[in-house]
Each structure stands twice: as C-alpha cells, then as structure tokens.
C-alpha cells in the first residue's frame, strides 16, 4: 500500500475515543496527549506495511498506554526513589481491552474528554480552543489562524487553559442518567458556540474562521453517534448542517452580507440540507421539543422553500412562539417579529418589538429590523434614525455596509 493518505483520517477519527481512554488511565491530559502522539507515530510506521488493524482505536489505546507506561517506568528508574504508587496504580487498569471498548465505557470517556474542555472556570474562547486541540487534534497553528491571533498567543492560551483544568476535579466515576444529561447539555452548548464563532464571521474573516464551523459539525456528529436517540442532539446537528448549507450564498463577491431572502438558493449544499432535514424529521417524532429542535425546524422551513416567496412564514411564526416559551429572550422575540411582519404586516411587528427597546438598546439587529419595518411603513425619517443607530453598533464592516444599502434606498 503506497498511498498512506487514508491513515490520517483514521487517526483523526479514533482520537476522541483513544484520548478519552488514555485520560481515564493516566488522569492527566498531557500524559494522554503524549501517549496518543507516540501511538500515532507507531501507526504511521507500521500500518502502511501491515494494513490497518481490525480495530484502530483499540490498537492505538494499547500502544499508547504501553508507550506511556514504559516512559513512567523509565523515569521511575532514573529517580532514586521509584514512585511505587504510580506504578501500581497503572497496573490496576490492565483489564482486557476488548471488554472495555465494547462496553459503555467509551461513551463516557469521550463525553468526559469533551466536558473537561467546557470547564466553567474557562472563558468560552479557551473552551473552544482546548476542544479543537484536545478532541479534534487541530494544531496550535491551525487554531491560532481560525481565531485570527498569533501562534505564540494561542499556545499560551491553551497552556493556561490546561493548567486551569489540571488543578480542578475531573469526575472519573461513571455518571448517572441525570448527570450524563447535564454533561451532554454543557458539551452541546460549547459545540454550538464553536460553530457560531465560525458561522458568524464576516466575509473577510469567513475563510480563516471556516474551520471552526466545520470542526463543530465534526464534533456534533461525534456526539450524535454517541447518543443517537437524543432528539436535542439530532436537532443541534440538523440546525448546524442547515445553517452551514447556506455558507456559500451568504456573501456576495464584494463581501456584503446577502440576506436569506436574497440568497441564490442554487448555491446551497443539497447533501447537507438532506441530512439536516432527515435529522429534524427524526427528532420531531420523539415529541420532546427543545430549543435546538425548534431552531432547526425553522431552518428546515427555509431550506424547504424553493424560492424565498415560498417560505411558510405562518409556521415559522408558530415555531418562534414555541421558542419564546422554551427559551424566553428578547432576541427570540425580535426574530419572531420578522416572521410576524410577513404574516400580519410591519405594523404588528413594530408593535411587538417596541417593548424590547430598553433591553436591546445596544443590539445591532434590533435597530436594523426596526429600520426595515419603519421603511416598509413609509416612515423614512424614523427609519433613517434607526439605521443610523444600527451602523454605529455594527460589529463588522459588512454589517455596516448592509445597513448603508438600506439607507441608500431611503434617499433615492
């Protein structure tokens, strides 16, 4: 076998399970990472001749564990007083590999690995960086590029994050059902955050940040394979796939934002839409709705509309009403107002968002939506004021440019 391109994806895909198991053995992230690295090196050496092992993850766990134990023993010999405690502790975990792999262990191993990246003491960006490094196996350089910072700064950030979690307690016992569900929710939130870091980038940054969205999809698929009957995880996966399906249509050639209703739908990714729709259909059968499922159902209605004017706004309005109940927030109400403006007209929508003015005073989209509604109601002076406020709050040049287009239309 001369072409060894196939090895890398096998190593990447085995990484969460192998790292999760090694972390359970050694209870130390750095030791687990070194052991994994060593196992990968040996895989690259032996797999091209021998072909892939029947169970790649088991092979990597075995080889990685042995390599790290050799290392511990060697170090122990060099010191005057061998650390017996460490050695006997390691010997304790030598139970049959296959039994551990085929048992339920590996799910909790991977969940634990994801969970330690979500340590509540870590700021969100550090959680994401750590997950990309530890779970996805991205290089520090790749992560730095996605976060638009220097490599040294990112290295420091990740080292600091690791030190932070090393001091904390990591729960190694098998979680109960309630605790597992809580862990799942925390991890899902981190993955969606990672996705949004990539997805909400402006046109100029989109290319650099794209890996964040793609890795988040890789992570959520991993989570869904572990918990294939969880409707909210189906919903989150569907939501991310349906949103990312539109990636190519979201900016024009000059880097301006193209709104959903103006997008060239032939640029949408059909396989992603097909998968997203399949998953939301499956999730809905459980009749146990949650915020991710409802958001995915809204995205699905957009995906199903062949043209913007075919969009089922009545249904979208109902789904947003649902979301308001599940997860009350002024931003959700603002989004609902857009659907209401399509169903009942701009007057009703404006009435709906006016009470939000206080809470969304410094929110770019609030003033953008308000301006657009006022524009539709032929109140150009007030619309201009709202758009002006939106521009002053814009986070990116593309956002500001988009609002300026509205202003141009007003003056014409």
């Amino acid at each position, binding site marked *: *076998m001369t*072409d060894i*391109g*196939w*090895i*890398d*994806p*096998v190593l*990447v*895909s*085995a990484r969460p399970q192998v790292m999760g198991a090694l972390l359970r053995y050694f209870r130390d992230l750095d030791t687990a990472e070194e052991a994994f690295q060593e196992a990968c090196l040996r895989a690259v050496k032996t797999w091209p001749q021998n072909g*892939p092992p*029947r*169970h*790649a993850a088991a092979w990597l766990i075995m080889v990685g564990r042995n390599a790290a134990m050799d290392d511990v023993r060697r170090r122990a010999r060099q010191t005057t007083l061998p650390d017996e405690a460490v050695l006997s502790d390691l010997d304790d975990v030598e139970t049959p590999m296959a039994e551990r792999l085929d048992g339920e262990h590996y799910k909790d191993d991977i969940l634990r690995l994801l969970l330690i990246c979500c340590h509540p003491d870590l700021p969100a960006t550090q959680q994401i960086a750590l997950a990309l490094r530890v779970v996805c196996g991205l290089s520090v350089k790749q992560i730095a590029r996605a976060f638009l910072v220097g490599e040294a700064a990112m290295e420091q950030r990740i080292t600091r994050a690791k030190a932070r979690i090393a001091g904390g307690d990591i729960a190694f016992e098998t979680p109960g059902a309630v605790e597992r569900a809580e862990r799942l929710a925390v991890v899902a939130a981190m993955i969606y955050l990672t996705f949004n870091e990539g997805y909400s980038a402006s046109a100029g940054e989109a290319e650099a940040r794209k890996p964040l969205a793609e890795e988040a999809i*890789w992570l959520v*698929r*991993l989570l*869904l*394979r572990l918990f*294939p*009957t969880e409707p909210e995880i*189906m919903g989150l*996966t569907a939501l991310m796939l349906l949103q990312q399906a539109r990636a190519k249509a979201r900016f024009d050639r000059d880097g301006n934002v193209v709104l959903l209703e103006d997008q060239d739908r032939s640029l949408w990714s*059909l*396989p992603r839409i*097909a*998968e997203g729709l*399949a*998953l939301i259909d*499956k999730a809905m*059968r459980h009749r146990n709705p949650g915020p991710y499922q409802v958001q995915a159902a809204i995205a699905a209605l957009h995906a199903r509309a062949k043209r913007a004017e075919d969009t089922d706004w009545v249904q979208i309005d109902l789904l947003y009403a649902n979301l308001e109940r599940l997860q009350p927030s002024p931003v959700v109400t603002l989004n609902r107002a857009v659907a209401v403006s399509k169903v009942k007209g701009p007057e009703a929508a404006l009435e709906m968002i006016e009470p939000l003015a206080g809470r969304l005073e410094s929110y770019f989209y609030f003033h953008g939506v308000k301006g657009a509604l006022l524009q539709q109601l032929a109140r150009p002076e007030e619309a201009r004021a709202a758009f002006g406020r939106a521009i002053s709050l814009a986070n990116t040049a593309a956002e500001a440019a988009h609002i300026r287009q509205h202003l141009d239309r007003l003056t014409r």
Partner: protein
Amino acid sequence: MLYAILCYNSEEAVGSWSKEYHDQTMARLHTVQDKLAKQGRLGPVARLLPTTAATTLRKGREEMVIDGPFAETKEQLLGFYIVDCASLEAAIDTAKDLAKANPGTGSYEIRPVAELHASRLPDAKKPAA
C-alpha cells in the same frame, strides 16, 4: 450477472476525510466508474447519508421505530454500486479497482443481484451527485 458491491467502512474515518483527500478519492472513484460505464457495465450508484440519519422499522406484532441503522457494526454500509460482471472473478476485480481508488480501512461485500427494477423516479427527484 449483476452484482451489488456494498461499501462498508468506518463512517467516523470517512467523516474525518479532509476536503483534499475527499476530492482526490472521489476523482479516483469516478475514474473507475467511468471505465465501467464505458463498458456498459455500470448500474445505479448510491452514496448514503451517515447512519445517524437512519431510522429502522422493526416488524412484528407491534412495529417498532428505532433511531439508527439496522445493526450496530464497526463498519457501516455507506453506499453501493450495481455492476454487470461476467463472473465472480470479474466482480472481485471490480471491487479491487474500487479498493485501489479508495485504500485503507473498510470492505466491499460482493452480492449477486436476484432482481433489479428500473428506477421510476422523475429526474427532478434524484438527489444531487
């Protein structure tokens, strides 16, 4: 004789292909398919979505709808080809050509076809290639 060549592989590994590796592999597989098509031997080809998108209906006195594929396996059914082959040897050779184009992990199950009915789908219903 018609053979179904069923493609089994770890969907985790295939799902971890980089875009470059994906594009290269697909290009190599298309070359194999084009050769078969030119020989008039290539029937329908399908690539399936991940097993997480699958639902299973278990028959019985009380039907059960289950999330996920029919069986939990280390390698998953990810797609299939229908190919006209003069003999089992020829079918194995075709599978070897596919294996060369897409090396590494996985298996091809070579399964003779008993009946094949022409697709009656309107063109507009076919998913994109």
